[in-house]
């Protein structure tokens, strides 16, 4: 895939992730609007203490991260691509911790969060591939 293709993929995935994270941020402040798909686990997860880092909703952090990663698609340098990959990878590791929390501590599943995790996984792969691509020698 060309760098242009990778940048488009990053933009689209980041927008999709931002949409999910944006919705979860919104319902964090308006819990009565939460629509749980496939059971009531998302309500438990959203109201648990793990839904916040200090005073900041985790979903809001996710939203900011997705938007930041999406913005990196506008630039073509290696440093920006590496920053996107680092952000995505850090988010993925943290997301895995939250999956552990859902499975082993809360015993409740938030399908919106899992949707975000799926997007983030693909986004991480794409951003890392882009680092490889930009570090390759230019043809010729």
């Amino acid at each position, binding site marked *: 895939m060309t760098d242009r293709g990778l940048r488009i993929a990053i933009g689209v995935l980041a927008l999709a992730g931002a949409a999910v994270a944006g919705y979860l941020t919104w319902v964090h402040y308006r819990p009565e609007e939460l629509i749980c798909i496939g059971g009531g686990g998302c309500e438990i997860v959203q*109201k648990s203490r793990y839904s916040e880092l200090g005073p900041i909703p985790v979903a809001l952090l996710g939203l900011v991260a997705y938007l930041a990663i999406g913005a990196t698609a506008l630039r073509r340098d290696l440093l920006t691509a590496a920053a996107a990959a680092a952000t995505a990878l850090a988010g993925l590791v943290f997301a895995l911790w939250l999956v552990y929390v859902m499975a082993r501590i809360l015993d409740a599943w938030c399908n919106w969060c899992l949707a975000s995790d799926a997007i983030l996984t693909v986004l991480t792969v794409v951003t890392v591939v882009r680092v490889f691509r930009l570090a390759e020698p230019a043809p010729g």
Partner: protein
Amino acid sequence: MQALSPGGTVHRMKTSRRTLALALTGVVVAAAAVAVVLVLVSRGGGDGNGGSATTTAAAASRPASVRGIPQQGIVLGNPDAPALEEYADVQCPYCGEAALKLLPDVIDQYVRTGKVKLVWRGLAFLGPDSVKGLKAIDAAAAQNRLWDVAERLYERQGQENSGWVTDELLDEVGASVAGLDVSRWKSDFESSATSKLMDEASTAATNAGVRGTPTFLLDGRPVPLSALDIAAFHKAIDPMLG
């Protein structure tokens, strides 16, 4: 600039590899540092559910006995399974023994396997601590955490009518149950839904002729337990289940 020597190509590839290695190292190190900080803050931060718990919520978890089993209001387990009702008072010592020694095995062997569903029928006839404790247990039904709270309360059972069900103890119980919104739970102590559950259990006990606690009924039929252990439970309930 088109005619690069082979040496120039090698040099450029080496530079590129170095750049890639540097970039990847930076990515991994930065990501690891950020992720570690996030996980540490997530594990240790906060003051409990909704900021209302006074004790540490870092220890919040679900009792192993009920983990992974669907819970709906007063019911634990497969909603279509035969109903095993438990009539109990949180102050009664035998109920405590049943909750902590018998029920984990019953849940493991009968509820988790879908043979029966466990239905809570909480009674409060021993005194004020019974009433306060029962409200706390029944209030957790609204969040599908009733059996979690019941077990955590039984673990802390005190001397009958000694005033052991204190607000501090309830804070501790609430903070120990993962997934429980403590402020909502506490405001539900006096909710109409909670008092309805208490009334329903009391009426059901009268109708079923329950004379003591703990009493177990399988689809309305008394389970004749000779002792509060799993062997006696097998002996009593297996013939009833057929």
